[in-house]
């Protein structure tokens, strides 16, 4: 079979550093150790949650931001800083190599500082005034997150937040590729960060999508999602060593605001577009990191879409049974898990999947595997029918 031809950056773009912080641990090493050991990080929800569920809360102490960023000292920004510190040396090298103006920032987030905005609103109800200095527009917003990231990174190139709910931090990889291909920048720090808040917990509860127990994506006994929080970053450069971003595909469902199209047409379009951009055939893909939320509808739709493109033997994993669904941080977090799989030849167990739903017709590992992976994909789907698929390759 003739291999398709890649569009854009031939051979892909190297990812020279990555980091991740979430319920599995406070550093990349801790998170990946837990993933390899098959341990989840799920636990009780915030105490103000008025129903039973489990959450992927970050349980380490997060340091306050420095004094000059005290106006922006929110949990979301603390999480971002914590994860960023690990990629800071690589970013400093890129800044030295390309210049600060040639480094872009593309960060996915759906909550930004919603948790503190809820607290501020409650204080206003109690006292008639917001907390001193609280300005939702300047500080507790996407603008505020970008300000913090600019200050932390010293990057002076284009900077955006992508906010497409649960596909946000997958779509930033597509943006980074466009910027580098168009020669706007030479490197982009992409990532995602989201924080637990009552709006998302009660919102998903209102949609009857929350599970009272740890989520079990692709299981015959799956009951819904858990919400988590975390941050992840990846530094994508024009040249360098490391696993590669080979392609990205995006699409819309054009079906429903919060339910996936049962036919999975949008999901298939995103996967096919990503493969086309990467110039790789479905047969060459060794691992599918699924969106795999653990809701009956998502997993059925996604499995059908995966089957349609990759056949019934596609090795498919969801990691949301470890971390919960990280919403705006999910895409970047799971991209890091895929990069680790490509670097170490390790496929994590799809935690909670046993017994796998036989109706799905895909291969879901319930125990970890060793595989020599060359190419892997990662799916992210979202409210509004926003779909993204990323194709990654092992280092050349």
């Amino acid at each position, binding site marked *: 079979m003739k291999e398709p031809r890649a569009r854009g950056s031939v051979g892909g773009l190297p990812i020279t550093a990555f980091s991740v912080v979430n319920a599995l641990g406070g550093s990349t090493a801790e998170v990946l150790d837990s993933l390899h050991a098959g341990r989840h990080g799920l636990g009780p929800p915030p105490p103000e949650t008025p129903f039973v569920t489990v959450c992927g809360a970050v349980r380490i102490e997060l340091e306050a931001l420095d004094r000059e960023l005290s106006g922006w000292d929110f949990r979301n920004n603390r999480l971002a800083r914590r994860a960023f510190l690990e990629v800071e040396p690589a970013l400093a090298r890129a800044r030295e190599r390309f210049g600060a103006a040639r480094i872009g920032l593309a960060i996915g987030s759906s909550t930004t500082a919603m948790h503190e905005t809820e607290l501020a609103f409650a204080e206003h109800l109690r006292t008639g005034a917001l907390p001193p200095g609280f300005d939702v527009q300047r500080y507790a917003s996407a603008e505020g997150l970008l300000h913090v990231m600019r200050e932390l990174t010293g990057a002076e190139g284009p900077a955006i937040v992508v906010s497409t709910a649960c596909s946000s931090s997958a779509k930033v990889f597509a943006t980074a590729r466009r910027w580098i291909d168009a020669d706007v920048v030479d490197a982009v720090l992409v990532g995602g960060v989201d924080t637990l808040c009552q709006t998302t917990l009660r919102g998903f509860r209102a949609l009857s999508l929350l599970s009272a127990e740890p989520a079990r994506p692709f299981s015959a006994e799956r009951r819904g999602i858990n919400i988590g929080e975390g941050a992840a970053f990846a530094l994508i450069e024009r040249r360098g060593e490391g696993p590669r971003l080979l392609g990205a595909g995006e699409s*819309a469902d054009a079906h429903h605001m919060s339910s996936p199209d049962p036919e999975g047409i949008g999901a298939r379009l995103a996967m096919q577009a990503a493969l086309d951009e990467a110039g790789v055939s479905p047969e060459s893909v060794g691992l599918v990191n699924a969106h795999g939320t653990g809701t009956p509808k998502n997993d059925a739709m996604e499995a059908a879409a995966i089957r349609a493109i990759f056949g019934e033997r596609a090795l498919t994993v969801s990691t949301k049974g470890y971390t919960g669904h990280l919403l705006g941080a999910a895409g970047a977090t799971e991209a890091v898990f895929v990069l680790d799989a490509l670097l170490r030849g390790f496929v994590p167990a799809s935690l909670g999947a046993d017994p796998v739903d036989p109706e799905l017709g895909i291969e879901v590992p319930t125990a970890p595997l060793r595989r020599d992976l060359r190419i892997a994909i990662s799916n992210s789907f979202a409210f509004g029918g926003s779909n993204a698929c990323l194709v990654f390759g092992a280092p050349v």
Partner: protein
Amino acid sequence: MSVAHVHGVGLFTAGRPGVGAFFSGSDFDPDVERPVARWLEGPLGRRASALTRIGVEALEQAVGAARFDAKTIATIWATAHGEHETAVSILSDLFAGEGRISPTRFHNSVYNTASGYASIATGNRAPSTTLSGGPDLFAMALLEALCTLRGGTREVAIVMADEPMLAPFDSRAARAPLAIALCLSERSIGSLAELRSLERRRIAPAPRHPDFGGLYVSGALPLLEAIWRRRAVRVPLEIDGGRPGGVWSIEVAPAGERSSGDERC
């Protein structure tokens, strides 16, 4: 960065719907507080928020003027504060009674709500993204659009919309919502204007408009006005410039004419 051609523009604000009505100084029309947004007629539209309606209305105007296919155009949405009115309603619900949230309000609270409604209304499965950020957000949406065209996409629309903030959060001093849209292509045939050289320059930022205060979407007004008045000019794209490297700006010229320099808008 390559050249792009503007094929259609759209604008909605309360009382002055449309680019022509806005820039010709038409009297405020009190019957047009809400946009028509024909795509959102029926049950879908009854659930749509005010911000979604004005964004979809601006997109409809631009797509109609450009004669682009609403079912296939890629879209780039931008909003600094997202579905703010919906978010404040949710906050009120959180702290009232049992603290329950409406499921419709919740799925209407994501920043890509308007993108979702527009794609559902038109059956459009093309890529769509939603950006957020600070004063340079409109410039970043333009950058994303230009890079998308450069990557081989034939037609792209930008929609940017924001609404006045509600108590207790308001500090933007805006009186009216504003949505703008542009349809872009690398094709010159049938275009209204040509865009080139998106970059930061040391030029004055766009003036604040009394109706829109600190809403960053008003940074798009100089570009829309230059297109509407068929001016060849470099226009600022931000109202509150001031970052190192200057204000994001772009050269615009009527179709068939090249910009002659850096005349300020």
